[in-house]
């Protein structure tokens, strides 16, 4: 645990994300702790949906906050914190994909065995359905998965996503639609092939 002032122990600040980040930029690095408490979960979700791996997502979240410390000086007074944080998360994820180009994103989860408890069979089926959907999401190209994750699962507006992806708002809408369409096609194909979430690739550890 840290020896320095730990914002976790402070009363919850009313300061905006941007205000806190400006303080971090000015050298008040412990203030990043408040931002960590506020946003680490959503950044973890982003990294998890992008990579499919819980362990990797944890590493990437760590990387994102390290980048916030290192590149705090690039945060502008007129910037919004969340899009900036997602930009760092996106860069961290893309850097990982670039380094491991030969390894497609694969989930590292395990689906539990059905036991004799009431409702166990139903829970197993639900888990399989969910895992199949996650696999369909991971089969999307990175850019489509990214725009879908940002738009559907996070509180970013289309305009903020457009700034993040450096394109127009209209282009974001089109990309989102195409991504949903491909996700549906991918899921349908998986269902039609009758595959288990592991897809015979042995990656899910499905039991």
């Amino acid at each position, binding site marked *: 645990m840290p020896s320095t002032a730990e914002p976790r122990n402070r009363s919850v600040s009313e300061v905006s994300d941007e205000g806190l980040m400006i303080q971090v930029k000015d050298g008040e*690095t412990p203030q990043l702790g408040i931002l960590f408490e506020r946003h680490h979960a959503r950044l973890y979700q982003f990294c998890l949906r992008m990579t499919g791996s819980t362990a990797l997502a944890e590493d990437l979240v760590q990387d994102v*906050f390290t980048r916030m410390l290192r590149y705090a000086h690039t945060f502008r007074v007129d910037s919004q914190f969340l899009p900036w944080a997602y930009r760092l998360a996106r860069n961290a994820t893309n850097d990982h994909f670039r380094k491991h180009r030969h390894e497609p994103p694969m989930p590292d989860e395990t689906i539990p065995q059905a036991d004799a408890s009431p409702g166990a069979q139903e829970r197993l*089926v639900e888990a399989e359905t969910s895992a199949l959907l996650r696999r369909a999401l991971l089969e999307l190209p990175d850019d489509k998965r990214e725009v879908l994750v940002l738009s559907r699962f996070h509180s970013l507006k289309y305009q903020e996503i457009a700034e993040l992806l450096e394109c127009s708002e209209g282009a974001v*809408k089109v990309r989102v639609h195409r991504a949903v369409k491909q996700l549906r096609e991918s899921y349908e194909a998986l269902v039609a092939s009758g595959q288990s979430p592991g897809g015979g690739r042995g990656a899910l550890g499905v039991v």
Partner: protein
Amino acid sequence: MTDQQTSDRTAVLEVLRRLERATAEGGEASDESVRETEQLGATLWAMLESNEELDEAAVRARTERLRARFYRELAVFEAKPERRSSLLERADRWLAAFWPSTRVAQAAVAAFTLLVGLGLGLTTRRESELVRLERQVTTMGQTVALALLDHSAANERLRGVSLGAAALERSRDDEAALAIADGLLEVVGYDPSENVRLAAVEALARIADRPRVRSGLVEALSRQDSPMVQMTLADLVVASGDGDAQAAIRTLLQRDDLEPAVRLRLEELMRDAGGNGGAVSSRPVTAKENA
């Protein structure tokens, strides 16, 4: 496939189809459509959540792991004394403060920088062209001067000496300067016209600090029969501090045809040189002063 599997997968597909339709709307989406898209997105999000994500204990454990790693990293970062003193970081921050946030402004800055770069490039190129032209002019002047020094008419040779003197002033190239100096020394030694020789001595006075010119002038002194040139040249060689200057003046003093005024001046120079250890005068006497 069991009934439940079929039912669950159909439900997922239904959400995906509805979401596909909802996101297909062009133009401004209605409030109702936006709400539906948000609801469908939330449903899909919930469907994607794994057991581990829903398991509170697992979420707590993961949060603690992330937290521990974060604060460890933060402590390490704060412990680094150089983190605020990095010149690169400060320069980066300084630049970031000037870098505009909007794309239009960024493009404007980039365009401005490009224009400044192009302007500088063109200016530099123009300057290098000027240098090249200047070199060409100097070379031409040198060629013309050397050609005129051999002209049969004294006034043309005089013009050649003037051109040579001008080329000497412009020349940044030692080789070129020495080529002109050699031509002028030839004039000082052998030109039949007193005026031309005097003009050549005046021109060479500017570069009399060069050993080759100095010794050339000393050598030319013994060949002079014009009192004006003798005195001007004697003043120049003594002032230049050449080691052979006094010997050359002594040789000249032995001549019977020497004008009394010249002899007087040469003796005076020798006296001064003896009294001052060879440094007769701090500056050469010009032909006009001798006159």
